[in-house]
């Protein structure tokens, strides 16, 4: 069975909410929607205080190339455009909406019917993806339309669909593969049409046998799309590792997947593309897993949540935080970020809220490095984390750059595996930040 070619770790999978069907989360009364929710240039807010909005009304407009529209997830009145705090405590511009009813823009198909026939041509599809504000839902929030505008002279050979969900605890991709199987396949057909190609590979790790079964059954109806079961190994869902697992190719350092003829998107993104192209729906909701070891089984949930819902409301809906809560994480335990502020609203890519108890919340005390080399073995990029972290702690940025610090994908395997609990990745992040600044200064000269 296939997997990527070096490194990787096996964290406890803890997919506690895997069997819980997706529930629709009730509408909030007061929504806060960030003006920019993607990787790239900021979007421009196009509404102001007092404006009436419907679900799907444009709130902020993408004006740069790598940028994404944001639409209103609610109908109601804009009360103010002001800064709001995000999960990590950063203040960012946001639109505050007092929610009234649930009225959608007329041009959006809100019926649950599956639309199979693809009427748009390749150019229109890319336009629509851009217009509907679709971003990569694997976590990076990269504007999706950019991936479908191939650079001159490049040809896509493989469309790779990421159903790996290698992060422990997360179950949202698993649920949509089971509950929205056909929509995902139509989404993939749309992507193929946009890229003018007929080969798609869907990578799914074998710890999701139901999803593999459902997707394989459906693939019989959609020739050219193949489900490939993969060995369980973190970080298989990372773009470069998934390409390597499925095609054996290595994306060259600092280059994009298209360099080796691949376009990679998440199953969630495929679903969002289906809804955007076939039903004209903007990206205004996503699936969020609420889970954790201390969360009662009945409160482990996969929720369909509108963007801009305050986190506290989701927590209250799921029975409140368990008493021994020590840490909240947005995303998985390997790459997710610790949440500072529970009043902050969700964004397009909020895939989970993970509750860690007090025992799990703090790291163990670091002890001296015993040079065991386990971090070197674990690094999926073939780097030497122990060396990089030493160089970074000594502020030897040029040497760190030579040792390829910028190739680090911050998957966390090194810190996960270190028997001495050394803060390897923390030091490497500092190094990446510094080397990045040095590189930018160099190109400006």
């Amino acid at each position: 069975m296939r997997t990527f070619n070096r490194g990787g770790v096996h964290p406890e999978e803890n997919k506690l909410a895997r069997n819980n069907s997706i529930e629709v989360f009730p509408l909030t009364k007061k929504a806060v929607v960030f003006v920019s929710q993607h990787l790239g240039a900021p979007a421009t807010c196009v509404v102001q205080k007092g404006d009436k909005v419907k679900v799907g009304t444009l709130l902020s407009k993408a004006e740069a190339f790598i940028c994404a529209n944001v639409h209103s997830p609610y109908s109601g009145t804009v009360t103010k455009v002001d800064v709001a705090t995000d999960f990590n405590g950063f203040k960012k511009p946001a639109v505050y909406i007092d929610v009234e009813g649930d009225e959608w823009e007329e041009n959006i198909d809100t019926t649950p019917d599956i639309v199979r026939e693809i009427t748009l041509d390749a150019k229109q599809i890319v336009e629509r993806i851009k217009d509907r504000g679709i971003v990569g839902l694997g976590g990076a929030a990269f504007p999706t339309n950019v991936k479908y505008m191939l650079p001159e002279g490049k040809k896509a050979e493989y469309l790779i669909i990421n159903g790996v969900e290698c992060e422990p605890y997360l179950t949202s991709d698993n649920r949509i593969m089971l509950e929205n199987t056909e929509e995902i396949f139509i989404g993939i057909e749309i992507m193929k049409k946009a890229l003018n190609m007929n080969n798609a590979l869907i990578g799914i790790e074998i710890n999701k046998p139901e999803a593999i079964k459902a997707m394989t059954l459906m693939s019989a109806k959609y020739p050219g799309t193949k489900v490939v079961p993969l060995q369980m190994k973190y970080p298989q869902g990372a773009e470069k590792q998934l390409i390597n697992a499925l095609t054996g190719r290595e994306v060259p350092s600092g280059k994009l997947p298209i360099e080796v003829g691949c376009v990679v998107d998440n199953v969630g993104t495929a679903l969002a593309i289906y809804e955007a192209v076939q039903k004209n729906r903007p990206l205004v909701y996503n699936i969020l897993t609420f889970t954790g070891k201390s969360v009662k089984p009945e409160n482990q949930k996969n929720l369909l949540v509108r963007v801009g819902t305050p986190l506290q409301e989701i927590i209250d809906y799921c029975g409140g935080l368990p008493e021994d809560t020590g840490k909240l994480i947005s995303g998985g335990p390997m790459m997710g970020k610790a949440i500072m502020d529970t009043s902050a609203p969700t964004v397009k890519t909020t895939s989970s809220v993970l509750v860690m108890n007090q025992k799990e919340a703090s790291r163990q005390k670091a002890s001296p490095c015993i040079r065991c080399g386990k971090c070197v073995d674990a690094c999926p990029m073939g780097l030497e984390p122990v060396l990089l972290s030493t160089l970074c702690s000594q502020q030897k940025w040029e040497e760190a750059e030579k040792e390829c610090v910028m190739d680090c994908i911050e998957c966390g395997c090194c810190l996960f595996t270190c028997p001495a609990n050394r803060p390897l990745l923390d030091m490497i992040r500092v190094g990446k930040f510094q080397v990045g600044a040095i590189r930018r200064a160099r190109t400006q000269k």
Partner: protein
Amino acid sequence: MTKLTISGSPHVHSTMSTNKIMWNVVLAMLPALLVSIYFFGWNVLLLTCASVAACLLFECLIQKYLLKGDMSTVYDGSAVITGMLLAFNVPSNLPIWILLIGALVAIGVGKMTFGGLGKNPFNPALVGRVFLFLSFPTNMAMSAWPNPQPMFASKMVDTVSGPTSLSIIKRGGDLPALSEMFLGSMGGSLGEISAIAILLGGVYMLCRKIITWHIPVAFLGSAFIFAGILHLINPADYVNPVYHLFAGGMMLGAVFMATDMVTSPITHKGQIIFGCGCGLLTIIFRCFGPMPEGVSFAILIMNGVTPLINKYVKTNKFGYKK
């Protein structure tokens, strides 16, 4: 409201810790210790305990009064490993006071001088062992080592001294049968006699992912090949290479001493180079040197080369293939 912890990812950790690694190595050494007690008597246990206790005590005192550092590293098991390995490397009739000096040199000079756990360039137990070997040659390197006397043998005889299999290889004489060498019924240091007990420990460490196969296989493989070449060229002067693998400290060195994480390279490629270096040097010392044994010196020399190997032998980085 609940107080929330904020920290960078990852938020989960593997169950492996330094302490676990060290105590698992101690566990892996127990079969060799048991075989040694069986063949050489209770004195073995006394020596081992004395050596371990001395190593712990010296580390504790140095950490507390000289380095004024964190005392938690005393209990991580690394000093226990050093103590056991040191005892494994001496003959069973060594006076305890000599062994205590060895422990002081191992911990004091070999380990704590450099700042303690993780910072020593040379394997501390070997530093202690070589110090004793050079300072007390009559006790450490004599040709008359105690012969094995199985504990429950029907006829109890006084311990007889005789040459080790290595001195037999060097100076001629009747070698013990290979099967006896494999099980441990041969003269030698405490812990080195039984290949099977050491291999058992090695397999345990492999299964617990404490060591990888690279160093032991490269060590034993290169020694076997090199000794084999010599044997093919001149069978009269150079014995069958299989004897080299089972005689002396080859197994103990390849499984427990060369694999010391702190003093061996961090990349697998580097570990293979390191292991091959150990194997080659051992056979060179054994066949062409003045002394019958060469494992300790071979490993110490390769320990010294390790920083160089780490500097020049690099991993294959993802996305740099030509």
